[in-house]
């Protein structure tokens, strides 16, 4: 310690609240080495070969390979179907990304979709106009999401248990509402729009709102305080609370949004097949969670990107579509979904473990180069 290191030196920092930090000269720099070395290399490696980039590449690769090998895959008609098929998964995956990033999960989304669909059929039979029914179904979804959020945040129950419960509950309610009947006579103007394409091209109408929503969710996740809070809450709830983040409130609203989007997905599902049924979308929650995890979101919270999730959705949908065109049965498709889910949880963990083992064996004392002074 240098002799003049005793006093807060005269070079006080300017600013409203000048933190009285001693002058740089008072302290010998390099008290501890800067973390270059292994950590820096790891980070660079991580950027080059990030998981979500890999998924996007894999999705493109799947499409290219399928176009070359699977008959009818690259037709414009199939493209329309592909987008329509991935629509509900993609829609729900957007808010689900937030939920999983905060370290929670919502398995009730497919049942919310089903209850929304059943309610739509019921209300249509009651003679309400479709213009009234659609917002009502979205609001219903939000309310169902609020129920989940209440249990998770106010009663502090584990979200896995809560949403497994509401998954059964909401599906049961859907059966109560509509029984095992189907309602089919929705106005053609709406069903045609949902299944239709833009001006006779291969691009389905629904891709527009989907793309807008994806962009919106992406911006919120990656460039707003809400996104920052979500990551912080998922990575360390304690630290988030100590930083003044209202973690409970945040999670509650994420569940509400997830429910609302699932409600909307129920509406679109009903209109697409022109059929309101209580068992619509059964099992969809697994596909959604698989797509989100495949997109590089950590099941433990705190990590993930929205572009990665979009890549995950496309990869999953393209793979399923190609397999279906190759006459693979629906049951076998479930095997693919399940396998992708396991792989997407397993591989990132394996990579992390290998990387830390690598860092251990390659560890050398960090070089003592002076830090690049930020802002100088």
């Amino acid at each position: 310690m240098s002799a003049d290191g005793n006093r807060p030196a005269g070079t006080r920092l300017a600013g409203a609240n000048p933190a009285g930090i001693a002058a740089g000269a008072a302290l010998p720099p390099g008290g501890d080495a800067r973390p270059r070395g292994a950590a820096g290399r790891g980070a660079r490696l991580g950027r080059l070969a990030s998981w979500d980039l890999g998924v996007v590449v894999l999705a493109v690769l799947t499409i290219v390979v399928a176009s070359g090998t699977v008959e009818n895959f690259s037709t414009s008609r199939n493209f329309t179907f592909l987008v329509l098929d991935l629509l509900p998964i993609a829609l729900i995956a957007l808010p689900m990304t937030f939920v999983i990033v905060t370290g929670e999960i919502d398995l009730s989304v497919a049942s919310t979709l089903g209850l929304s669909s059943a309610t739509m059929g019921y209300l249509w039979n009651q003679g309400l106009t479709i213009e009234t029914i659609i917002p009502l179904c979205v609001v219903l979804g939000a309310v169902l999401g609020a129920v989940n959020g209440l249990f998770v945040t106010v009663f502090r129950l584990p979200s896995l248990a809560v949403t497994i419960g509401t998954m059964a509950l909401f599906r049961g309610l859907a059966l109560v509402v509509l029984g095992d009947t189907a309602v089919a006579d929705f106005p053609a103007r709406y069903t045609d729009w949902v299944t239709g394409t833009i001006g006779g091209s291969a691009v389905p109408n629904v891709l527009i709102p989907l793309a807008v929503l994806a962009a919106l969710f992406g911006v919120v996740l990656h460039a707003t305080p809400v996104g920052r809070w979500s990551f912080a809450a998922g990575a360390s709830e304690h630290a988030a609370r100590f930083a003044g983040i209202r973690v409970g409130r945040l999670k509650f609203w994420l569940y509400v949004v997830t429910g609302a989007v699932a409600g909307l997905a129920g509406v679109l599902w009903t209109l697409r097949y022109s059929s309101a049924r209580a068992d619509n979308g059964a099992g969809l929650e697994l596909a959604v969670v698989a797509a989100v995890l495949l997109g590089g979101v950590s099941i433990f919270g705190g990590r993930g990107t929205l572009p990665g999730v979009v890549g995950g959705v496309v990869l999953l949908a393209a793979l399923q579509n190609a397999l279906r065109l190759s006459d693979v049965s629906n049951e076998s498709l479930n095997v693919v979904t399940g396998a992708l889910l396991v792989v997407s949880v397993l591989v990132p963990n394996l990579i992390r473990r290998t990387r830390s083992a690598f860092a251990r064996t390659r560890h050398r004392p960090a070089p003592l180069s002076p830090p690049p002074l930020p802002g100088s």
Partner: protein
Amino acid sequence: MSAEHAPLLAVRDVSKSFGAVAAVRDVSFPLYAGEAHALVGENGAGKSTIVKMLAGVHRPDTGAIELDGVPLDLRSPADARAAGIAVIYQEPTLFPDLSVAENIAMANPPRGRLRTIDRGRQLRDAEALFRRLGVMIDPARPARGLSIADQQVVEIAKALSADARVLVMDEPTAALSAVEVERLFTVARSLRDRGAAILFISHRFDEITSLCQRVTVMRDGRHVSTDPLAGLTVDDLVRRMVGRDLSTLYPERTTTPGDVVLEVDGLRRDGFFRDVSFQVRAGEIVALAGLVGSGRSEVAQAIFGVDPRDAGTVRVHGRPLRAGSPRAAMAAGLALVPEDRRLQGLVMDASISRNVTLPRSGTLARLGLLFGGSERRAAAEWTARLQTKYGRLADAVSTLSGGNQQKVVLAKWLSTLPRVLMVDEPTRGIDIGTKAEVHRLMSGLAEDGVAVLMVSSELPEVLGLADRVLVMREGRLVAELDRAQATEESVMFAAVGQTRAASAQSAASSGSDDSPAGSARTADKDRNASADRSAGTNAGTDRKTGAGAGVEVAL
């Protein structure tokens, strides 16, 4: 005392780093059969890392651990156990719902026919072990409800049943009363005398002198010395452990306290503290001292609103502060640098930049958006002000050393321009140089009119920085001492209770050249209140000590 023959176990040139932080560097020392060996050092000296390497939890980056001259490759705790190394931690790790005998035989239960567990033999084995150890514990009773000391004894029996030749005891006495310590030592001595090598980690010199024959001192991850304990004085050890002149750490400061900024009145949180009232003025550093578990951190957290409060008011600049809302506290100009940096202070996996700006992401956003590097600029500015050393702002904060992590936490909160800064253990586990920086920083903040409330277990820090010292004991404020009144003795008296005054005084005075005298430091490591209370009791208990330093010192 054993002869100078080949060591049973040797730690040889062992190094271990976590990220950029070198926890242990080139440490070597031998453990001899039939000898108890003390490992001492300040917090953060690297003792626990050594223990974890012996336990097979961590693997050394370089160097080796040798048993009978043969290098061991300990990849897991099971490997360590198989090699004959047993580790007993401060908090026993028994299965509460299993019987004592089942706990002892857990790793390798005796098998009967059909490979089923032979319960009869399991019980008899446990009984035999306890007879050897000379203790009376019913092997058939469940482990739940055993005192901590008895649980430690069961852990030792476990070690014996695995034919452990090396017994590592990592602060086993921190939560024990004097009688229990003596009981544990009787068992440890009988093991030692049968030829086991014991590595004993403790902050209490009286225990070390009563059990050990040899002592290794570590400082800042490095080996300082290994010597026979006979002939060493406590002063020698303290000097080696501290190895520095402390006077340079604390800046001189002229204070002119201004208006009252923070007013706490009748604050209570059930089960943690009650009747806490005090004021902090602008430009003043007030220390909240006391043993860990006395409720200091909880008071700070209740003021900040992270924890709820059951009664009382908090006023900032005369305006009452809403309970249970860190956001309201931040808006009122409060900031809290929490005790547990890794858990509460930082999102370890997130980048430096995100961590620094986390409390302010709302105000940094333009039109609700965080585009355009406003976070990066703010983070760069504040890390530079605090002279934080890092590679890139986008690096995970976990890659930084402890000292630089603490600077990131400080940057995070100073950037909110607080008028009341609460810091909880601001220099825990950081290197000496950074400690001095942090102290100067707090001093400078006070000179600029910030009201500072500091929770600290380090007495020199409390005495060196604070204008006033508030002492807590068992959830209550028991003393308020101004700068002139505050000495190691007076603070420790208040912290452990006046009745222990006589021996506490000797404790405090003999450790004076460095000072974390007394059990504040011991307690530092404990995680629960009960541990502290008994630590306090121990410090004052009149107990015979071994040869060498004949004073009661708890360091």
